[in-house]
């Protein structure tokens, strides 16, 4: 048994038990490090698709034992060519559950908890239980959501420096055909998704009238069936891209349309590709990107090497090209930035607070609208919202924010830049004087 254990971690030991010149400044090689990795590191894998399957297996083989995986999808027959943890008899079962089971069967000691649900279904606290979040996702929305959650744990000290224990590292992988990326996000230190959202080119959208009147390509025919014909025929029923019957209907209609205009090239897989905006996945790209992500996860946890800084792109379409680019943070990022720290007396009303914003040397913000965790505290416009939020002006901000000792609010309004009035949107960290969250908890505990 001991012998098997030793041989199993032989390669990991080369990274964790020896010194090296690539190691992080605090790296302490030794068996304790390996044991701690197995005992204490908790990693959440988001997505159990092509990349998620690879990630789960790679992490389990890299010495991580406490893993969770979350995915809302069920296994489809078309997944089987690359989502190698799944078999024909698994079709219809939840991906997260089957993936967890298969990896645990093959890698003894791995303890993988599956979560068959949407990422939005979990409470925010669920995500705080993990030390690192590894992303194997196929949508910008989902990435943006997890990024928002991970950055929400981040706290800054009074000098606007991130507090290390609140940093929730993320490792993100993405592949598209023969291309892929892997990146390390240390909120507060390296750019978050929102800092670099421009990296994702907007999806190409065809004009509706082209689809309706002058289709020229197979994709036009498919989008016509998907966006126009579907509603015409099905009225209230929303199109569900994950429903194979819906997809088949769109495909059949697209074929008819293409025949009418003499356009070649409509296939079922192209229909899926256009409607879901996906490019066929390549198993080897997933494997390479996942390996890079798993390695980064290991490096973050153990510091056996400095982490990649901070964005690796991989292109295997012609030969092989790969590079690492170091992107910079947006210091005013609404999601990961520190925002402007403001200390307030708990008795200050919203109106008084807005007056303070006008005088604040860093802000000079007039005509403010204020929002706190999805609640609009005050809106300058339109009149219907101004009227609804006006009563808040005379209430204390502390009460409006649910009597929290500190929290983030966002304000927008007008400010001056080079003597010109410009509109701006700012993040503020409000701290209420004399209201200490910790003291509060102590009192609660003692009572």
């Amino acid at each position, binding site marked *: 048994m001991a012998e098997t254990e030793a041989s199993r971690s032989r390669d990991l030991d080369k990274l964790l038990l020896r010194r090296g010149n690539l190691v992080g400044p605090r790296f302490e090689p030794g068996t304790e490090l390996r044991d701690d990795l197995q005992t204490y590191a908790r990693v959440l894998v988001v997505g159990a698709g092509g990349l998620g399957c690879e990630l789960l297996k790679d992490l389990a*083989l890299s010495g991580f034992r406490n893993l969770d995986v979350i995915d809302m999808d069920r296994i489809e027959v078309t997944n089987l060519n690359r989502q190698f943890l799944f078999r024909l008899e698994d079709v219809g079962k939840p991906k997260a559950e089957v993936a967890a089971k298969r990896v645990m069967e093959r890698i003894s000691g791995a303890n993988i908890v599956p979560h068959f649900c949407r990422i939005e279904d979990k409470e925010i606290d669920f995500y705080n239980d993990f030390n690192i979040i590894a992303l194997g996702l196929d949508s910008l929305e989902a990435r943006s959501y997890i990024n928002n959650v991970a950055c929400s744990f981040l706290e800054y000290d009074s000098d606007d*420096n991130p507090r290390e224990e609140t940093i929730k590292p993320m490792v993100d992988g993405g592949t598209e055909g023969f291309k892929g990326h892997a990146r390390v996000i240390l909120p507060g230190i390296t750019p978050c998704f929102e800092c670099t959202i421009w990296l*994702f080119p907007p999806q190409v959208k065809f004009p509706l009238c082209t689809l309706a009147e002058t289709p020229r390509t197979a994709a036009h025919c498919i989008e016509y069936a998907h966006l126009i014909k579907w509603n015409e025929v099905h009225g209230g029923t929303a199109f569900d891209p994950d429903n194979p019957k819906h997809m088949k209907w769109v495909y059949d209609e697209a074929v008819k349309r293409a025949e009418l205009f003499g356009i070649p090239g409509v296939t079922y897989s192209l229909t899926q590709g256009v409607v879901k905006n996906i490019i066929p996945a390549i198993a080897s790209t997933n494997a390479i990107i996942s*390996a890079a992500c798993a390695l980064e996860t290991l490096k973050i946890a153990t510091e056996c090497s400095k982490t990649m800084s901070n964005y690796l792109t991989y292109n295997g379409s012609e*030969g092989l090209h790969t590079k*690492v680019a170091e992107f910079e943070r947006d210091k005013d990022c609404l999601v990961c930035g520190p925002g402007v720290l403001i200390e307030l007396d708990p008795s200050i009303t919203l109106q008084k607070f807005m007056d303070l914003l006008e005088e604040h040397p860093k802000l000079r913000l007039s005509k403010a609208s204020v929002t706190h965790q*999805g609640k609009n505290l005050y809106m300058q416009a339109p009149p219907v*919202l101004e009227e609804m939020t006006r009563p808040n002006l005379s209430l204390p901000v502390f009460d409006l924010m649910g009597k929290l000792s500190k929290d983030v609010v966002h304000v927008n309004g007008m400010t001056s830049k080079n003597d010109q009035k410009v509109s701006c949107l700012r993040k503020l960290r409000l701290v209420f004087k004399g209201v200490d969250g910790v003291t509060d908890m102590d009192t609660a505990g003692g009572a």
Partner: protein
Amino acid sequence: MMGEGLSEGKGERHGRVMFGGGKRKENNGDFEREKRELKSLLLLLLGFIAELPKPKPPTKLCSSIIIISLSFLCVFFSTRTMIKLFKVKEKQRELAENANGGAPIKKQSAGELRLHKDISELNLPKSCAIQFPNGKDDLMNFEVTIRPDDGYYLGGTFLFSFNVSPIYPHEAPKVKCKTKVYHPNIDLEGNVCLNILREDWKPVLNINTVIYGLYHLFTEPNYEDPLNHDAAAVLRDNPKLFESNVRRAMAGGYVGQTFFARCM
């Protein structure tokens, strides 16, 4: 199946690394082989990442930012390693297990924040009004009523629904016309052909621009971008007939085979 839109980074090209052999992995779940491959890949990646020349940051400004952020790294990651931190957290977690968790807090997406700004800066003409059917805290779904004060559609009332994505303004709002209308650029299902809603959407545009765009569809219907082919042909060939068709539809009645409910 995975990534959505990847683009090349802004930095310059650096090392070019070739993997030899071109061996393609098969998905038969052979873990032993997977394991071997992973090991070699891990070491390979570790090696080549280290060997790559340090990428040049896109601008001089950002190089200083990077230096600052690197010095941050040194300052902040000076005492405990991450794994020690995990250890402390795990102990805390075990202790906290019995304590009840805080109330779920809704985190606003960057899209919601930007939308909040758009909405609070709305400056609409008298002919356009906005409503929030789900109350003041749901800005992502709202309705706009347009009452054209000029042109063929004078006197009509047209309702549009807006649905805004959490990644707004990366993605345009989804807009539908809820009032059945005889219009060359709006079909009978409520699809709207407005360039800034699809092919010409840019993140610098905003909700105000979209509402103005919709308003202009009524003052200047355009037969060159037809969604309702019949209406477009009539507008092009016989504007007088088009005008009377619009009147008939808005008053509630048939145009050809299609019935329109009254919207005046």
